[in-house]
């Protein structure tokens, strides 16, 4: 029998702990496939965050770190400076990257650190049970914004990709979405481009992936994909925010 599909060897056989319908599984597979397709299996080093993807070190079949909350870009800096030939990526959620680790991500980008960041934005804290994230959208109900996110009380959601795109150190920043097949394919192309730019020594790259959290959003997986499309994309427009150096 001819084999028409095979799981990438850059994922281990450890079953994901992610909830049914969560897009982390898709994001993991895209990252792993890109590493394999670029022939970087023995050069890839990943940094897992604190949050839902905290166990990512069990799933990516390469050398891995588990970083403290928000500090993955600094850990990646240390790892990359010692072995510049490696393909170093962080995999961070919105609490990790856009709240606890804002200083680290901003300055890794400002330094033009030659690393790639996979940023999972699902507008909520998943691991701790559905609290408000810096990226929760206006009016979004979470366990710590039970009356919906309000501007007066909670401020406005942070657009990390736009924010990092204004830094001269950033080389490539793109926001993609994982809510349907066409967008998943675009996301994979973006991840591969980010990795390729790193291999070419271009500097800091980040791919933001709008993602779903059916469990904490309280929706079916299908409804969650619709909600993402209807509510997140209008606030977080997809597309390339920065590509190439202006200097």
């Amino acid at each position, binding site marked *: 029998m001819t084999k028409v599909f095979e799981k990438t060897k850059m994922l281990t056989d450890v079953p994901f702990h992610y909830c049914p319908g969560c897009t982390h599984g898709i994001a993991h597979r895209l990252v792993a496939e890109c590493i394999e397709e670029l022939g970087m*299996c*023995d*050069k*890839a*080093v990943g*940094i897992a965050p604190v949050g839902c993807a*905290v*166990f990512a*070190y069990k799933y990516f*079949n*390469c*050398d*891995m*770190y*588990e*970083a*403290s909350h928000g*500090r993955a870009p*600094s*850990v*990646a*800096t*240390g*790892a*990359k*400076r*010692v*072995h510049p*030939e*490696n393909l170093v990526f962080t995999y961070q959620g919105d609490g990790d990257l856009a709240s606890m680790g804002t*200083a*680290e991500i*901003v*300055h890794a980008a400002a*330094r033009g650190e030659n690393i790639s960041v996979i940023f999972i934005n699902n507008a909520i804290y998943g691991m701790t049970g559905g609290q408000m994230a810096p990226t929760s959208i206006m009016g979004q109900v979470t366990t710590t914004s039970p009356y919906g996110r309000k501007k007066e009380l909670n401020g406005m959601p942070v657009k990390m990709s736009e924010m990092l795109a204004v830094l001269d150190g950033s080389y490539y920043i793109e926001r993609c979405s994982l809510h349907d097949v066409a967008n998943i394919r675009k996301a994979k192309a973006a991840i591969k481009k980010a990795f390729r730019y790193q291999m070419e020594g271009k500097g800091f790259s980040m791919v933001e992936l709008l993602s779903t959290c059916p469990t904490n959003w309280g929706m079916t997986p299908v409804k969650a994909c619709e909600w993402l499309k209807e509510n997140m994309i209008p606030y977080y427009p997809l597309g390339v925010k920065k590509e190439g150096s202006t200097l």
Partner: protein
Amino acid sequence: MAKKLMKGNEAIAEAAIKAGCRYFFGYPITPQNEIPEYMSRRMPQIGGTFVQAESEVSAINMVYGAAGAGARAMTSSSSPGISLKQEGISYIACSELPAVIVNMMRTGPGLGGILPSQGDYFQAVKGGGHGDYHLIVLAPSSIQEAADLIMDGFDLADIYRNPVMILGDGMIGQMMEPVEFKEPGKRPLPAKDWAATGWDGKSRKRAVINSLYIAAEEMEEVMARLKARYDEIEKKEKRVEEYMMDDAEVCITAYGTVARIAKSTAQKLRSEGIKAGVIRPITLWPFPSETYEKYCGQVDFFFDVEMSLGQMLEDVKLAVNGRKPVEFMGVVGGSVPTPNQIREKIMEVIRREK
């Protein structure tokens, strides 16, 4: 190699380079600025890396990244900055990574001041960060010793896969003394086959630099491994200087800068017919308790002097365990005690006891 007159901070930086440190991650804070400044000059000359991080928090995590990649990595700071590093230090300890951290203590708590202090003893020796771990804490009392201990510190870190802290103070950092960089002895060091260097899928196990263990039995296993290592360090690595202790009746005890002054005090007291000696712990953890025990039958009392409200004092008392009085003199705020001030306090004790 000829002796060279150097500032403590610069000697520490050069010693680290001589010890093979090629990755330094720092952030400015007085009184340790000469360390990152020196590293920023020297590292590019020798193919090393200096990064000025955006914060101490970031710098210690860069150390985590570089140490996890198998390199000899170091960071330095002073008290408030060391507080910021504690989270990272705890992760480094649990992830069993070798690294060297320098603390040039200044006065505190809070922002405190930039003058010398020994107020971070508890933080360095009793934990600092969260969880059940120990740093190997080395306390130099001269520039020469600071250079020697840095070189040793990198070896100790590699041998035990444990972070090492060099606990100095603003005085050690800022004063100048002649220093000779001895060629570091060749010690057998374990291979870093655990490092995240990129994995070919066969030549070793996949490297995972991690401190997360959700299952109780896994965490217990890690803690058992750490405990066994701590026991071994306590058995093998205690270092202490005994100064004129042979016939001493008064034992002054102090570490770092204050120990030098304690020695001058002992000489002064001896010239007045009082048999004084000094116990100077060089490793603050592991603490050389046995040395104190040894003299409990011989001395009339112990006299602990610190630039703090009394921190090492607790370890001295535990070692003496009630067998002899332990007196204390604390100088805080940034001034350094003079031999005469210490002598006065000791004479008060002697007069009181008579």
